[in-house]
């Protein structure tokens, strides 16, 4: 019992890190621009302003979300398909 409680929060492997990364990127990729982000004020067209000063944290986050969605859209299709096939085969 002691062994389990010790290793509960410690026994991460690289595999679980990859899993967590894929899940996080998927989560960011499903945020729809029109239906969701503009509704809560996180659309990218609402981030204009403050040209002289450096952008704030919210603007940086919005840019990050948008760039992740743009860049990772196609690779995620491939990675997710591979994951699905592997999970179906090996559980």
């Amino acid at each position, binding site marked *: 019992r002691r062994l389990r409680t010790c*290793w509960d929060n*410690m*026994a*991460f*492997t690289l595999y679980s*890190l990859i899993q967590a990364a894929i899940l996080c990127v998927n989560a960011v990729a499903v945020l729809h621009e029109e239906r969701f982000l503009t509704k809560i004020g996180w659309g990218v067209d609402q981030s204009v302003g403050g040209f002289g000063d*450096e952008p704030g*944290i919210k603007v*940086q986050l919005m840019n*990050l979300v948008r760039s992740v969605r743009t860049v990772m859209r196609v690779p995620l299709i491939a990675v997710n398909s591979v994951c699905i096939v592997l999970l179906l085969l090996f559980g």
Partner: protein
Amino acid sequence: MLDFPNDPNMRLRNSSVDGADGSQLFEDTSGAGSASQAGFPGQSLLSDPMSNLAMAYGSSLATQGREIVDKNLDRFIPISKLKYYFAVDTVYVGKKLGLLVFPYMHENWEVSYQQDTPVAPRFDVNAPDLYIPAMGFITYVLVAGLALGTQNRFSPELLGVQASSALVWLIMEVLAVLLSLYLVTVNTDLTTIDLLAFSGYKYVGMIVGVVAGLLFGRPAYYLSLLWCCAAIFVFMIRTLRLKLLSEAAAEGRLVRGARNQLRMYLTMTIAAAQPIFMYWFTYHLIR
């Protein structure tokens, strides 16, 4: 086919003659073979022209393959940049270890530059390196295995589990610091490898704590861990202050403004995360 028994000997004599001038088509691998060929006519493997050709082709293919691997590896992992971080010597390692354990007397924390490029760690104590973090990581895994062994909890798989979980947390910490640096838009010249180096310095304190705990018991573990945590905290604050904060704030003057406050908080958070990790990774090793 009738010429076959004669040809190898002909080729032998020819190649030994050709060895003198540099215009031979193949590498002269039959030179060594010809000395032993006199007594062993049966072993014609090395003197067979086809195998000569095959060996020469194979060696040229291997060289080409190695060049391709080198070129592509350099694209993914910057080997030349990595070499800078391993350019250390014994004096530097000794001074840096002393600095990690006792950073209170050191005065000048700036990295000296030499025509826009930072000086190699061999010449400057303040430059980050990857040798100490790498060695510290490996030593930590071994010491953790040793500590688990004293509690009769050791098995060889545990070494791998320890190593991979420590590596995972290191990667997550570096990613978190990168993300927060991006969000706060700090204009800094800290590279990812620099952050990896700074995050790896805490392994030194962890090793000191665990070894003290193994040798002298729990009170020694807590004392040495406390000392090393404080030392790493001060070390990180003093090192990151110069890189993250603006010039004025780095010199200690109070600078108003939300941005500098945010950067100060960021520095403090990064520095405070180190002792937390240090305790978290070692408390289960000392019973």
